[in-house]
């Protein structure tokens, strides 16, 4: 890589991306990135560029790609409106710790600050929602900026980085050579493991009677799945997952007790309230997990393991904070653990699972129901996919039902917008995921509302022949908001009802085979056709309009006050 080459800044960018191992770029051209696109034309064999139908689609696709593969997602947009269209995805990636490098064109440096055509202050706008950002105004800055961008995006707690690239720098010539970034004196992404803290944690775990592991996305990000399961098995510690942690542990693991928080499982929430020791790994005690913090886990001491020191004790007091990479910490913990069985403690899970089955699941699967329920649809999908598919969701009830009823055998198989809760995320993120892991089955599960926030990406799927399976759960409502209106706002359905187009006809117009199913008796066969389809397939499932997601911890309520029905 040290060999020098005389190139333009735009080409230096592409060479830098290649040096970082980039194979796919999601993007959209415009006046201030034409030089980059011009060079991209010559690199088509090495850099696979996916032209989305909206820059928001590009950034969400890059997120889906990153989340499915663990590699850095790359997206490219022009200045001004191109850059502003990326903003939602950058904010989403920041909250969900997704490694991204977002490259935006910018007006020539001589025009900066003059309100030139399509000038937007991208650096200022993305400052609070990016892990790092930098404006390149000289071609010679490109290799170092890209090297830093990748290093920062993927190390420590991953996150999005923005590189704003002025047009004059894109066409300026430079002697190119590339050096990856391995160290910055102001940034220390890998904390030293505090062995004393580990020793204390081991003692606490060995002394605990009702320990509980809370599994967050940090487990996936650090590749700690095996270490986690070994620790859990060594001391028979049940494991619950946050929304972002889903799929870190196979669902059929005997110590897996389900999901935590607002629409989590009864067992996971009840055991949080009964536990005497919570070991939180790579999760941040978001309000969606804790409900009312004052009544959260009243009997438990908390050990919190996080690579981001700012998360330790941020949302609630923690008895033992451990600033560490999850995998390193779990591997160290596991060594001191005394083996034990906890049949009584696991009894709570069995009892609560039976209660949930009886109170929540069985009624929603009742064969005499006139409509297909979302519960039944996701159940049927899980049966058909046998835990092998990557499920990418949108936001709302479709997301929560997917989180509750999907089954996973492999890590990184559940991709959803957790922290920001971005409607419109699902379809483009699923495209990116499918391009990242083409040999896996990828299914997008979307609501009728959220689908229409990114519906134009059907064009991207058509043009690039992306073999993505798409399910739209059509309840003719912005269902999750309607649920809140029903439960907490006196059933006043203010502007949450949707009049929808003929979705399969829309999909077919984009050349995607499509069908609609509304009869519960035909559901399984329709899902089977979706699973068996070679290439893209679209299935609209007409579901019960007023179904609610249960169990539910109302916002701000105690986990102990979880409700199972209206």
């Amino acid at each position: 890589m040290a060999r020098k080459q005389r190139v333009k800044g735009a080409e230096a960018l592409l060479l830098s991306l290649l040096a970082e191992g980039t194979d796919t770029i999601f993007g959209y051209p415009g006046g201030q990135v034409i030089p980059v696109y011009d060079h991209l034309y010559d690199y088509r064999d090495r850099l696979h560029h996916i032209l989305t139908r909206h820059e928001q689609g590009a950034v969400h696709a890059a997120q889906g790609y990153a989340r499915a593969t663990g590699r850095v997602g790359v997206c490219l947009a022009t200045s001004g409106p191109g850059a502003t269209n990326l903003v939602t995805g950058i904010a989403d990636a920041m909250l969900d710790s997704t490694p991204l490098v977002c490259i935006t064109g910018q007006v020539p440096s001589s025009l900066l600050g003059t309100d030139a055509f399509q000038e937007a202050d991208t650096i200022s706008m993305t400052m609070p929602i990016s892990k790092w950002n930098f404006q390149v105004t000289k071609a010679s800055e490109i290799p170092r900026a890209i090297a830093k961008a990748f290093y920062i995006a993927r190390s420590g707690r991953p996150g999005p980085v923005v590189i704003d690239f002025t047009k004059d720098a894109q066409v300026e010539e430079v002697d190119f050579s590339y050096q990856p970034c391995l160290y910055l004196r102001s940034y220390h992404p890998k904390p030293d493991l505090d062995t004393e803290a580990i020793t204390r944690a081991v003692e606490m775990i060995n002394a605990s009677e009702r320990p509980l592991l809370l599994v967050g996305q940090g487990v996936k990000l650090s590749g700690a799945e095996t270490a986690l399961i070994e620790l859990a098995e060594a001391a028979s510690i049940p494991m619950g997952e946050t929304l972002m942690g889903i799929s870190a542990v196979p669902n059929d693991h005997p110590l897996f007790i389900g999901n935590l928080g607002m629409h989590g499982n009864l067992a996971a929430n009840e055991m949080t309230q009964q536990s005497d020791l919570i070991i939180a790994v790579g999760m941040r005690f978001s309000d969606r997990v804790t409900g009312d913090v004052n009544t959260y886990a009243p009997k438990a001491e908390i050990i919190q393991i996080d690579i981001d020191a700012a998360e330790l004790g941020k949302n609630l007091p923690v008895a033992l904070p451990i600033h560490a990479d999850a995998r390193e910490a779990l591997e160290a913990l596991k060594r001191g653990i005394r083996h034990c069985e906890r049949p009584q403690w696991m009894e709570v899970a069995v009892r609560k699972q039976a209660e949930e089955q009886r109170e929540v699941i069985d009624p929603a699967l009742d064969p005499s129901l006139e409509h297909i329920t979302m519960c039944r649809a996701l159940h049927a999908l899980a049966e058909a996919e046998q835990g092998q598919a990557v499920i990418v969701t949108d936001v709302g009830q479709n997301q929560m039902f997917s989180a509750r009823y999907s089954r996973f055998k492999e890590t990184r198989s559940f991709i959803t917008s957790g922290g920001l809760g971005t409607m419109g995320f699902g379809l483009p993120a699923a495209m990116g995921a499918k391009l990242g892991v083409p040999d896996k089955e990828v299914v997008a599960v979307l609501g009728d509302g959220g689908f229409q926030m990114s519906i134009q990406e059907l064009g991207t799927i058509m043009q690039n022949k992306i073999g993505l399976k798409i399910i739209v759960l059509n309840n003719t409502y912005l269902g999750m908001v309607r649920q809140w209106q029903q439960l907490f706002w006196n059933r006043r359905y203010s502007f949450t009802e949707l009049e929808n187009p003929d979705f399969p006809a829309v999909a077919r117009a984009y050349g995607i085979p499509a069908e609609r199913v509304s009869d519960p008796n035909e559901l399984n066969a329709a899902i089977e056709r979706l699973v068996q389809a070679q290439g893209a397939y679209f299935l609209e499932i007409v579901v019960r309009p007023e179904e609610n997601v249960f169990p539910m911890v109302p916002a701000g309520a105690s986990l102990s006050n979880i409700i199972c029905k209206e």
Partner: protein
Amino acid sequence: MVKEYIVIAFTENQIGVLNRITALYLRRKINIESLKVSESSIKGISMFVISAFTSSETIDKLVKQLRNIIDVIQVEYYTNEELITQEIALYKISTKLFRQNGATDRIVREWNARIIEINPSFVVVEKTGTREEIEQMRQEFERQQLLQEFTRSGTVVLHREPWVQALPNQIISQ
């Protein structure tokens, strides 16, 4: 309990760091009382001194978030008692009033201030001291209706403990 906390940060001298730092205060709606940025004793490293009123819990969380800014090398926070803090203030008074009013000489002497410029239209008095001293002297001038203009620097600080190292070793040795 809300009180004044002084954050001292050492950062790379990079464009944008100031914005990133102040944005974290803004996000929590904490008003910055005073802010001083200057080159530290090491070339290429800036020193920020930021004072703001908030709670100990909030400042602790805020400082952890400040540490996450990529170009921030080191951040700590202190209360006033832990630091030797000084500010400089300049007071502008019309030369005519300055001469006519007998109190001016006394005020300058009593407050350990000094005159740094005299010209036909105004006199500039300089005072170094704590914010309280500077404020009290300003009030005295105002009571005498002398003050035309007044300006104060941000705080310059040193830690009281003899062993506190302002910058981490690894940076100093570079």
